[in-house]
């Protein structure tokens, strides 16, 4: 029986409310835990002061830590998790590949190269922003990877191995290009900073990053929700979607463009964080089933919560040191990747 954990017959509203409550709690926990733990109640009071002009006697330093560092960081983590999650979801659906994810397909690597080319090599002479460079890099990487997989697999619609292999090749190429640019143009201090950033790092995140990450994640989310029916129609492949009245090419361009955009923006802010786009959509599918009308919000919520938690873990796992968040997501993601691979190959038979 096709029963998902949260079946449609269970009233939907409480589920949505529950999800949003969990997200809010995760944001508060994210602002509360850190090198110095600040009580939950204080966190809520600081937010009340900052957002609603409430009046509580709280130390200015604590206020600064919570509001300027931790809360902005938690919001960026949430936006990033949601963005990477829905980006992976779109890629999995449109490429009909359960292992598709912006990191595995080399899109994140391409975005990194683009960002580094702007920031370190000075491409564009300051006229192009870091994010725009990352976006171009992401698109170039995607076109290259898909082109390579097409060339390798002909036009077989189910050549699922080819695109992953092409992604491996693309990732290697763009990571090599990134290293090349760094080796050529960066000094030792810069190089160390960039390497740390490339592994995924939320340390330097402040409010201006929120104003970039959150609107982009939100707009891309709306675009995908708007295309939920079109994405559903891809269940049996592009031809079937077309026979159901979907303009396949237009849908692919809009949605893959949106996925590349959100990936690029997140990479330009926090570096290449892997496996979120792979694992989160599968977890969401397990909970709410394969229809995109519900799957997209579920993926965004789970991605947001997952990355806030991963960020907390990255801050507290080694006392006094911050571990790159990409390490945490990879430690969770790799076993999940293996599991999906094994289960997927069984399911395909």
């Amino acid at each position, binding site marked *: 029986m*096709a029963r998902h954990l949260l079946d449609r017959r269970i009233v939907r509203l409480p589920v949505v409310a529950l999800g949003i409550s969990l997200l809010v709690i995760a944001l508060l926990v994210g602002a509360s835990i850190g090198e110095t733990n600040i009580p939950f109640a204080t966190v809520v009071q600081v937010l009340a002061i900052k957002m609603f002009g409430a009046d509580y006697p709280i130390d200015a330093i604590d206020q600064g830590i919570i509001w300027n560092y931790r809360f902005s960081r938690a919001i960026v983590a949430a936006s990033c998790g949601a963005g990477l999650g829905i980006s992976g979801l779109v890629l999995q659906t449109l490429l009909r590949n359960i292992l598709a994810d912006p990191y595995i397909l080399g899109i994140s690597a391409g975005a990194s190269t683009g960002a580094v080319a702007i920031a370190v090599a000075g491409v564009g002479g300051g006229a192009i922003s870091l994010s725009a460079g990352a976006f171009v890099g992401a698109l170039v990487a995607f076109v290259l990877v898909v082109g390579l997989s097409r060339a390798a697999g002909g036009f077989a619609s189910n050549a699922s191995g080819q695109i992953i292999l092409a992604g491996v090749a693309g990732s290697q190429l763009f990571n090599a290009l990134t290293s090349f640019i760094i080796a050529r143009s960066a000094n030792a201090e810069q190089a160390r900073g960039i390497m740390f950033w490339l592994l995924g790092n939320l340390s330097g995140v402040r409010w201006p990053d929120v104003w970039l990450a959150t609107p982009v994640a939100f707009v891309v989310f709306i675009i995908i929700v708007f*295309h939920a029916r079109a994405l559903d129609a891809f269940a049996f492949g592009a031809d*079937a979607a077309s*026979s159901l*009245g979907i303009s*396949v090419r237009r849908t692919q361009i809009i949605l893959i463009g949106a996925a590349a955009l959100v990936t690029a923006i997140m990479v330009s802010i926090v570096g290449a964080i892997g496996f979120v786009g792979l694992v989160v959509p599968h977890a969401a599918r397990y909970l709410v089933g*394969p229809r995109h009308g519900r799957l997209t919000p579920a993926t965004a919520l789970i991605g947001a919560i997952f990355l806030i938690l991963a960020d907390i873990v990255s801050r507290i796992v080694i006392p006094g040191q911050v571990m790159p968040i990409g390490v945490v997501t990879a430690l969770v993601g790799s076993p999940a990747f293996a599991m999906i691979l094994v289960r997927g190959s069984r399911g395909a038979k």
Partner: protein
Amino acid sequence: MSLAANNLTWCAGRTTIIEDITFEVRKGEIFGLVGPNGSGKSTLLLLLAGLRKPTRGKVTFNGVNLAHINRRETAQQIALVAQQLDTTDRLSVRETVELGRTPWLGPITPFGEADRKIVEDALVETGVAHLAERQWQTLSGGERQRAHIARALAQKADYLILDEPTNHLDIHHQLAILALIKRLPITVILALHDLNQAMGCDRIGIMEGGRLEIVGSPEDTLTAERINRIFEVMAHPIIDPVDGKTILKFALPEEKKPTELK
């Protein structure tokens, strides 16, 4: 109302798959396409559904070039069940059939009571209502085929294009699907392998090597001589003692003796 091919040619790279095909499907008829493997039946059906761009020539729908009609409007008029459609998504049969409503729903239109009724009717008509909540991966090939036909029916199109719909089906369901097709008040174009099943069509087109050899009634076109030439089998018409209808019995041509090969 008509769907027509005009000098239709389609090439995959340098290989010509379909060459210079012209014919018209009449409103309300059941039009069968027969021909050996690789004769271009599936490609012709994809072209008629507007899923491939003709290399030369055109498909017209009510006189309008199909390439100039947008996908959504086309899908409201023409439904297609291609071969070997599969998914890794854990969809139920009902969810699959609900996809048939896609061309009629906007991005934020809710799935209404009328849509639900259409889906329910399609499930009943194709005999898969008892499987409605079953997950796709648990279905047999025949059950999947019927679910796809139900999905196409839910599309409520005036034209239904089926690529070998009786494939994978046991004999009961083969006959049930053919009977369903006859009952439907719409135009059906289908590719068939079984020439005796093709005898039940209003008209048929016989394809060979990417060309349309002839179009006409099954009795006029499926002659023993033509079957021998195109399918490389001997066909013997036999009269069914029950209903007096002609059925075809097939045999391989007698092997040529080694002396004749010299």
